[in-house]
C-alpha cells in the first residue's frame, strides 16, 4: 500500500466557508479540515492528492461526491476539476468515492433559513455562512436543494488547481526544471523543451508534497470546458443500454428479493401467512423485516410473484384514513397555536383590507400529495459477510445510510462499504433510505450471499414519502387599477419535521418550506403578509423537486393573478410594476419579449398566462400558451427565463430547465395521490400519468447571467409552471382553477 501521501492528511482546506459562525461552533472545529477519506483505502499503485483527486496507473479519477440522478452532477463536478487540472475530456473517470464528512454540502442548509434570496443584508449573509459551517461540522454529504453546482464551483476548481500545482512541483523535483517554466496539458506536465510527463508517473511523488496554501484559479475567459457545451460523461452509456443503475447490479452468487411493508405508511404488521409463497418456484425463504416481510428467490420475478401470495394482516394507518378526512384536518390548521411563521408582514394588511373600497377578494387554494415515482423503482443490493457489509444503492444521503446500516447490523463504520450508484431518477425520493434498510434486513438473513432487493412499482408508489398536501386562504384588495394588498395564509404538514423525526434530529424553529415560494417573493405590494401554519403530521412526507415552492408557487402566483385581473391590469405589466428586484424584473421582461406578450387573450380559444417564482435563489418566469381543441386543452408553447448568475454547461442546463418545466406541467395537469383506507389509491402509472410526449409543448429557454451568485437549476423552473398553466387556462377559458391537479376541472388533449 502506498502511503507516500501521508502529508496529504493535512488535506487542503478548501476555504469556501466563511467562519461567521466560528465563535459559536469553535473556530478550530470550523477551520480544521476533514481528513482525506481516500487515504485509508488506497490500493497499491494509487495516490491521492486531495479528497477529489485519485491517480493510479490508468489515469486520474475525479471523486464526484454528489449523486447523479440524471441532473448531470458527475459530469459538471468533473468538469470543474478537469478545467483546473488540465485533463483531456476523454480521459476523465469519475467515482462517487466513499461516504465521508469531508464531502459535506455547505449550501444545502441555505434554503432552510428565513432570509429571502434577494436579501443581501448583514444578518442574511452571516446566517448563510453559519449554515455552511454547521453543514461542515455535521458532515452533511447531501445531494439536494439545487446546490451541487454552487457548492462545488469553488471547491472542485480549487481541488483541481491544487492537484495541478503539486504535480508541477513533483515534475520540478524530477526534472530539475524551475516550476515557473513548467506547464500542463491534457494530463501531462510539459517542460520548456516539449517533453511531456504523464500525471500518472508523477502521482506518487506529488502525493508527498504539501498542498499549496494558495491557488490561483483560471478566469472564465481561460476556460475550455466550463461555459461550453460538453458531452456528458454518461451520455454514451445511457444511449446504448450499458449504463449500470442500482437495479442492474449483478454479483457472483447473488440472490434476488422483494419486500412488502404496510401500505398504510408507518402502520404495523400484525402478522402474515407465507406458506403458499414459501412453496413457490425459486423461493429460498421468506424473512420478516420492519413493517412487513421480504421474499428471497433466485430471480426478481419469482420473488415478486411469491410476495403477492403472502397474506398480511396490516395495522391501521397512524393518520386520517381518507383524503376527505385529511383535507378537513388540514383546513382546521389556521389557528394561533399552529401558526409557524410570519416572515413577511409589510404595511398593515388588516387595515388595508378593512378599508378596501372595492371590497376584499377571497379565495382558497389547495394542492395534493404527489409521488416522486422515479422510473427506476427503489432497490438496493446488500451483502453481509464475515463482519463486513457492502451496499450497492443510489442514495442522496450516504452518511445517513451509513448510520442506518450501523444501527441495523451493529457493525462499525469501517466495516460498512456503501457503493453509490447512478440513479434512474430521484426528484428527492432518495433523500430517504427506507428501501435500503429493507435490503439490509433481507441480506442479514441471506447467510453471506448478496441479495438484490427490488420493489415492485406498486410497492414504490404506495410507499413514497410524498410532497405534502397544502391548503391556503388568500385575501386581497385592489385600488386604482393596481394590486394593493395581499394576505396569504398557508398550511401544510412540515417536511423538515417529518424528515427530522425519522433520523431523530430535532428541527427547531419555523419550517421555511411551509411558506417557501410565497413569503420571499420580490413584490412591493404595499400591504403584504404571508403566514405559515404547521398542520398536524399525517402521511410521512419528504422533499419533492422544489419542495415547498412546488405548491406555494401555484397558490401565491395564481392569487396574485386573480388580483391583477380584478384590478383590470395586464398580468405581465403589473407583475413588473410590483417587482422590486432588478434580477427578477429581468426574467419577467425576458419572457415578455420571448413570447411577444400582448396580453393574456390570444383569440380563437387561445390564451397565455405568465407566472413568476423565486426559489433556491433563482428568479424564474414562465409564459404558457394554451388552446382549446376538440379533444381538450392543449399546451402549445412555453417560454421560460431564469437568472442563475452563470451557466456552466449550456446543453445540460437547457435539458434541466425543459425537464423541470415538463415536471411542473405534467404533475399540475393530472397527478395526485389520494388516500382510501390509509392507502394510496394510485399504485402505478395508469393512474399517475404525468406528461406524455404528444402533450409536450415547444419550450424556449433563456438563461440570464446578470447576478453575481452562481445558482443551481434543477428545481427553480418547477414552481412557476403550474401557475403559468392555470393562468393561461383562465385566459383561454375564463375558468379560474384553484386546485391541482387541473384535470379535476378541465380535460387535456
Amino acid at each position: 500500500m502506498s502511503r507516500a501521501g501521508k502529508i496529504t492528511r493535512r488535506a487542503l482546506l478548501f476555504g469556501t466557508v466563511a467562519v461567521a459562525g466560528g465563535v459559536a461552533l469553535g473556530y478550530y472545529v470550523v477551520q480544521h479540515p476533514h481528513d482525506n477519506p481516500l487515504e485509508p483505502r488506497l490500493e497499491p499503485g494509487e495516490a491521492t492528492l486531495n479528497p477529489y483527486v485519485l491517480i493510479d496507473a490508468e489515469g486520474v479519477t475525479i471523486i464526484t461526491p454528489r449523486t447523479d440522478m440524471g441532473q448531470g452532477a458527475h459530469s459538471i463536478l468533473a468538469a470543474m476539476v478537469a478545467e483546473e487540472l488540465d485533463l483531456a475530456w476523454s480521459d476523465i473517470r469519475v467515482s462517487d468515492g466513499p461516504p465521508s464528512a469531508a464531502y459535506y454540502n455547505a449550501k444545502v442548509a441555505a434554503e432552510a433559513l428565513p432570509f429571502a434570496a434577494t436579501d443581501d443584508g448583514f444578518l442574511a449573509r452571516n446566517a448563510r455562512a453559519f449554515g455552511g459551517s454547521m453543514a461542515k461540522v455535521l458532515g452533511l454529504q447531501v445531494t439536494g436543494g439545487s446546490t451541487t453546482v454552487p457548492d462545488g464551483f469553488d471547491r472542485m476548481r480549487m481541488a483541481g488547481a491544487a492537484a495541478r500545482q503539486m504535480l508541477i512541483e513533483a515534475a520540478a523535483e524530477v526534472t530539475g526544471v524551475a516550476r515557473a517554466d513548467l506547464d500542463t496539458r491534457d494530463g501531462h506536465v510539459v517542460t520548456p523543451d516539449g517533453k511531456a510527463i504523464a500525471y500518472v508517473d508523477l502521482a506518487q511523488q506529488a502525493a508527498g508534497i504539501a498542498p499549496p496554501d494558495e491557488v490561483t484559479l483560471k478566469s472564465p475567459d481561460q476556460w475550455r470546458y466550463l461555459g461550453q457545451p460538453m458531452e456528458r460523461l454518461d451520455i454514451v452509456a445511457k444511449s446504448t443500454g450499458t449504463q449500470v443503475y442500482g437495479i442492474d447490479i449483478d454479483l457472483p452468487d447473488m440472490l434476488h428479493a422483494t419486500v412488502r411493508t404496510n401500505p398504510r405508511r408507518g402502520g404495523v404488521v400484525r402478522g402474515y401467512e407465507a406458506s403458499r409463497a414459501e412453496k413457490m418456484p425459486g423461493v429460498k425463504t421468506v424473512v420478516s423485516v420492519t413493517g412487513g416481510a421480504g421474499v428471497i428467490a433466485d430471480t426478481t420475478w419469482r420473488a415478486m410473484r411469491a410476495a403477492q401470495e403472502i397474506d398480511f394482516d396490516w395495522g391501521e394507518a397512524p393518520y386520517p384514513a381518507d383524503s376527505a378526512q385529511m383535507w378537513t384536518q388540514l383546513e382546521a390548521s389556521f389557528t394561533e397555536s399552529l401558526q409557524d411563521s410570519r416572515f413577511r408582514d409589510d404595511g398593515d394588511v388588516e387595515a388595508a383590507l378593512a378599508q378596501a373600497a372595492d371590497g376584499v377578494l377571497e379565495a382558497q387554494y389547495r394542492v395534493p400529495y404527489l409521488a416522486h415515482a422515479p422510473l427506476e423503482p427503489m432497490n438496493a443490493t446488500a451483502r453481509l459477510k464475515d463482519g463486513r457489509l457492502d451496499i450497492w444503492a443510489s442514495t442522496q444521503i450516504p452518511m445517513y445510510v451509513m448510520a442506518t446500516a450501523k444501527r441495523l447490523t451493529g457493525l462499525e463504520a469501517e466495516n460498512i462499504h456503501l457503493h453509490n450508484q447512478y440513479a434512474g431518477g430521484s426528484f428527492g425520493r432518495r433523500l430517504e433510505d427506507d428501501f435500503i434498510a429493507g435490503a439490509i434486513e433481507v441480506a442479514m438473513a441471506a447467510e453471506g450471499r448478496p441479495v438484490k432487493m427490488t420493489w415492485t412499482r406498486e410497492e414504490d408508489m404506495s410507499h413514497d414519502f410524498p410532497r405534502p398536501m397544502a391548503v391556503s386562504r388568500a385575501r386581497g384588495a385592489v385600488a386604482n387599477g393596481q394590486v394593493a394588498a395581499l394576505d396569504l395564509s398557508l398550511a401544510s404538514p412540515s417536511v423538515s419535521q417529518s424528515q427530522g423525526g425519522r433520523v431523530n434530529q430535532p428541527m427547531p424553529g419555523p419550517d421555511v418550506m411551509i411558506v417557501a415560494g410565497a413569503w420571499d417573493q420580490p413584490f412591493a405590494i404595499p400591504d403584504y403578509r404571508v403566514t405559515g401554519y404547521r398542520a398536524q403530521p399525517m402521511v410521512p412526507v419528504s422533499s419533492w423537486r422544489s419542495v415547498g415552492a412546488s405548491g406555494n408557487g401555484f397558490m401565491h402566483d395564481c392569487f396574485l393573478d386573480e388580483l391583477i385581473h380584478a384590478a383590470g391590469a395586464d398580468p405581465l405589466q403589473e407583475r413588473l410594476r410590483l417587482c422590486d428586484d432588478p434580477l427578477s424584473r429581468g426574467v419577467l421582461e425576458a419572457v415578455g419579449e420571448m413570447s411577444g406578450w400582448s396580453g393574456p387573450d390570444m383569440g380563437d380559444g387561445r390564451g397565455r398566462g405568465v407566472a413568476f417564482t423565486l426559489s433556491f435563489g433563482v428568479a424564474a418566469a414562465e409564459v404558457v400558451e394554451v388552446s382549446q381543441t376538440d379533444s381538450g386543452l392543449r399546451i402549445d408553447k412555453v417560454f421560460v427565463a431564469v437568472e442563475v448568475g452563470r451557466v456552466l454547461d449550456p446543453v445540460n442546463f437547457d435539458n434541466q430547465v425543459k425537464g423541470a418545466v415538463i415536471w411542473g406541467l405534467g404533475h399540475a395537469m393530472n397527478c395526485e395521490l389520494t388516500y382510501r383506507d390509509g392507502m394510496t389509491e394510485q399504485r402505478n402509472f395508469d393512474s399517475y400519468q404525468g406528461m406524455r410526449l404528444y402533450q409536450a409543448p415547444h419550450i424556449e429557454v433563456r438563461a440570464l447571467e446578470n447576478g453575481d451568485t452562481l445558482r443551481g437549476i434543477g428545481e427553480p423552473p418547477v414552481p412557476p409552471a403550474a401557475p403559468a398553466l392555470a393562468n393561461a387556462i383562465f385566459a383561454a377559458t375564463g375558468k379560474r382553477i384553484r386546485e391541482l391537479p387541473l384535470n379535476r376541472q378541465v380535460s387535456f388533449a
Partner: protein
Amino acid sequence: MIRFTVNGAQVETDLEPDTPLLWFLRDTLKLTGTKYGCGIAQCGACTVHLDGFATRSCQMQIGDLEGAEVITIEHQGTPEAPGPVQQAWIEHQVAQCGYCQSGQIMAAAALLAEVPAPDDTQIDDALSGNLCRCGTYPRIRAAVQRAAELMREEGQ
C-alpha cells in the same frame, strides 16, 4: 422447453411459461439494458422488438415466444459503435437519468424501420407510450428526426 432467439442467438429455457420476457432478459440472460418501470405496459421502459414490432416485454410471457425473434437495446449498437438511433441520442444529449431511454430508442427504431421520415405526429403516436419522468421529450423528438437523417445517409 421453449426456444426462441434473442439478438440473433438461440435461447432455450424451461422456466415457467408465464415468466415475463422482461425478467427472462434481465435476470436470466443478464441483458439489463431493458428496464423494469411499471410491469403493466404503462411506461415503455421495457420496450423490445418482437418479430420487428415494438413490444412491452413486461407483458410478453416466454411461453408464447416459441420461434420468435426478440431484439433488445444491446443489439442496436455498442458504446464503441452505436447504431444510428443511438448516435442521434448521443448527439442530442437526450438522456438525463437515462432509465427510460432504452425503451425510447427501441420504440424510435421500430418507427423508423416502418416510416423512414416521420413527422411530429407520427413520432408522437409511436412514442407517447414511453414515459420519461425527467421530461426529455423535446430532445427525443429532435433525436428521432436526426436518427432518420442518419439512416437515410447510411442507406445511400
